[in-house]
């Protein structure tokens, strides 16, 4: 049989998929927009990095398919995929030179095509270079595939670190420049737009060495820690927690105003995420109207404190318990009618509840009390003994305290009778009931706890902004929080934190590319579901279950095993 027909097909298919993705990324303007930022000065821009990472990833997948058919197919498959991807881009360039596509694709500018052919004056020379780059990409993907697993891991860590540092240069550089000895490092790393060549190489080598040391020594260290007596292990854990707390406490001092602001937003999402994690992650009740409780917390806080309305003029601390209380009550009120609903039906009903709250606060009917579309302003900042939480670094501490409290409650509840009841309801409601679990009480407690956390977050949000508007409470907030939980890992508390950092923190840092935020969100969710369905930081047991299928696959020794104790 024709070898190409049998061996080339997966790589051709992957190449076409990859090529289509690259053409799409170019046409929607991502490449051009990202080109404004250099990853390594004068060497590679962010747009090029985006194309390169996609291409290498696809070619790598093709190379793996090739490897299944023997070592020699690796390069063939990789290069085939690389050439097809480059070929599709070349076609795009040729098409762009022949036809004016800007009527439909406004981003299909000459500048884009120049970028794609490496700024070559001569069109055909550029296309030749593009195809060559495709082949080289495929070749290096093949090499990557043939490397031993550990070495590949080091290389990828190094490359990704360089890309991430380059990506986040606007955050890292100002922070570094404020610290005496680090300022020199900063000048070395970031002379202008992007990393310097020597800085990039240095960073790459440092990360490779660090990951290598960790992978060789880390295992030994972990076993040594495991071997310690429980008491000193607990001491070590305590020390780690203390170090973590110290880092969290000094963070806003180091980070400066802008990053502290980002941290407060992340913190609010962690609060929201931990609350929804109880409802969705622990009890398995898919609540799409979660923003409603956030809104109720915010509005209660606003009504009770704002002098603009002038009803109560309470201070923050007087109003806070009541805001949380109203959130809890709203959780119960929503919970009662949806007790009998499951899955999709519950999701739709809660979605409706979220919209009802938003429309209520927007309505003219309630305007005298809720401010209507103009919202409520002049919400005072919290104050303790003359110390006002006004600036982002100060508010950060308030939110941190809230996160610690909510984390503690979640943690205590998770490993308790109630936490087990929630998880039993998530796994099988009927059986949970047959085991003596009162479904009404258990579900209402989940709704109420989650709503209380959300209202707490809302109250802090109101005081942070100083004003509340109906449009802050749209359904996208609910969806965002669900995404945070899914990406972090359902039911996992560290996962919520990591998910909030990734899905809320990163977009805040990359504000200039906000146009592509939802696109990246969608892509990230699809990629997560395909590659790491248990989330970025899953619960330990969940991790065990999804990645050690071997345990389950082990043949059941049915015949040898006695079914009961033989007396």
């Amino acid at each position, binding site marked *: 049989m024709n070898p190409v027909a049998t061996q080339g097909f997966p790589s051709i298919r992957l190449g076409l998929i990859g090529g289509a993705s690259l053409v799409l990324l170019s046409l929607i303007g991502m490449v051009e927009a990202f080109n404004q930022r250099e990853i390594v000065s004068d060497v590679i821009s962010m747009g090029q990095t985006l194309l390169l990472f996609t291409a290498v990833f696809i070619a790598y997948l093709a190379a793996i398919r090739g490897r299944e058919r023997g070592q020699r197919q690796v390069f063939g498959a990789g290069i085939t995929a690389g050439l097809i991807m480059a070929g599709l881009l070349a076609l795009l360039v040729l098409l762009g030179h022949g036809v004016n596509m800007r009527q439909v694709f406004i981003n299909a500018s000459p500048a884009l095509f120049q970028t794609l052919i490496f700024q070559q004056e001569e069109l055909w020379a550029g296309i030749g270079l593009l195809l060559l780059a495709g082949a080289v990409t495929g070749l290096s993907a093949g090499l990557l595939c043939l490397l031993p697993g550990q070495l590949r891991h080091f290389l990828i860590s190094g490359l990704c670190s360089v890309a991430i540092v380059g990506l986040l240069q606007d955050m890292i550089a100002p922070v570094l420049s404020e610290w005496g000895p680090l300022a020199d490092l900063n000048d070395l790393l970031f002379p202008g737009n992007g990393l310097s060549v020597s800085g990039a190489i240095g960073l790459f080598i440092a990360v490779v060495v660090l990951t290598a040391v960790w992978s060789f020594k880390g295992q030994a260290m972990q076993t040594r820690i495991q071997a310690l007596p429980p008491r000193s292990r607990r001491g070590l854990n305590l020390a780690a927690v203390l170090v973590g707390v110290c880092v969290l406490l000094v963070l806003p001092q180091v980070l400066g105003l802008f990053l502290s602001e980002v941290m407060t937003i992340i913190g609010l999402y962690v609060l929201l995420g931990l609350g929804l994690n109880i409802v969705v992650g622990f009890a398995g009740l898919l609540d799409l109207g979660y923003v409603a409780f956030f809104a109720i917390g915010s509005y209660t806080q606003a009504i009770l404190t704002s002098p603009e309305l002038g009803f109560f003029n309470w201070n923050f601390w007087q109003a806070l318990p009541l805001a949380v209380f109203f959130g809890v009550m709203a959780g119960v009120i929503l919970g009662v009618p949806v007790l009998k609903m499951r899955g999709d039906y519950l999701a739709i009903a809660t979605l409706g509840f979220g919209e009802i709250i938003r429309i209520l606060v927007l309505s003219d009917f309630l305007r005298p009390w809720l401010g209507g579309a103009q919202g409520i302003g002049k919400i005072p900042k919290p104050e303790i003994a003359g110390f006002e939480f006004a600036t982002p670094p100060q508010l950060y501490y308030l939110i941190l305290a809230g996160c610690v409290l909510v984390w*503690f*409650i979640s943690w*205590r*509840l998770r490993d*308790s*009778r*109630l936490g*087990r*009841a929630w*998880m*039993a309801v998530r*796994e*099988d409601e*009927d*059986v*949970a*009931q*047959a*085991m*003596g*679990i*009162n*479904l009404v009480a258990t579900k209402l*407690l989940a709704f109420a706890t989650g709503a209380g956390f959300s209202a707490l977050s809302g109250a802090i949000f109101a005081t942070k902004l100083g004003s509340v508007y109906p449009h802050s409470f749209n359904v996208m907030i609910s969806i965002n929080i669900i995404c945070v939980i899914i990406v972090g890992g359902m039911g996992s508390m560290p996962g919520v934190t990591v998910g909030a950092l990734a899905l809320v923190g990163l977009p805040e840092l990359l504000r200039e590319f906000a146009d592509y935020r939802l696109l990246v969100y969608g892509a990230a969710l699809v990629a997560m579901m395909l590659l790491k369905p248990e989330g970025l930081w899953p619960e330990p*047991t*969940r991790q*065990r*279950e999804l990645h050690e299928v071997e*345990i*389950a696959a082990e043949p*059941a*020794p*049915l*015949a040898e*095993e*006695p*079914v*009961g*104790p*033989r*007396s």
Partner: protein
Amino acid sequence: MAVITIANLTKQFGGLIAVENLDLEVKEQSIHSIIGPNGAGKTTLFNCITGFYRPEIGDILLDDHSLVGLLPDQIVRHGIARTYQNIRLFPDLTAMENILVGMHSHLRAGYFGTVLGLPAMRKEEKDANEEALRLLKFVNLAGKGDLLAKNLPYGNQRRLEIGRALATRPKVLCLDEPAAGMNPRESQDLMDFIRHLRDALGITIFLIEHQMRVVMGISEKVTVLDYGKKIAEGTPAEVQANPLVIEAYLGRGSATQASAA
């Protein structure tokens, strides 16, 4: 002494009468089996007893309390626990957690006590863990407490489900086809285990089973259902000789042929 008394029980699904005018008594500390062809209403009867279905007519008494109208979680607190025909463990919880969920109704920990970590709650949790470990050992799953229920082999899952039911501290244990999918040797072990259960814990075993070897081997009393009606009751030997039973299982005419032969 009857621990469960069923009087004139009828359960309908639309026009289909699943259980009709059933009278039944289960003696305390006995092993009582329900048999019958597929669709005879055996599992429906279990679902009525454990509160999943509410019967239209009739009464179900545990000792002297009526169970009709109670929710499943209330009934399990009265002392009736069950297992399922197709195993229904909590698949993503560990074996240990499955048992601990079974102990739910015996634990008192409240919301605020849990959050505050009151000493009483901690002690209760510690005791519960110890009891769960004992139960795991009792159902021969010692050392497997940390495995996820769904990763256990089939036989272990069956035993874990029984362990979870025992964790509710039942007076009556309803087993729905516990020997399904077991080979002769395993079902022999199961029979020994069920007898051991009854003798060691002094509970009543109420059993649905299709494997005649198991039914005839351990039952003290057998009730035969067909189309929702009781057609025979007695010791295994009596039931086996009953022409109505043979007819229900093998079809009309078989009984006369069997007696002729």
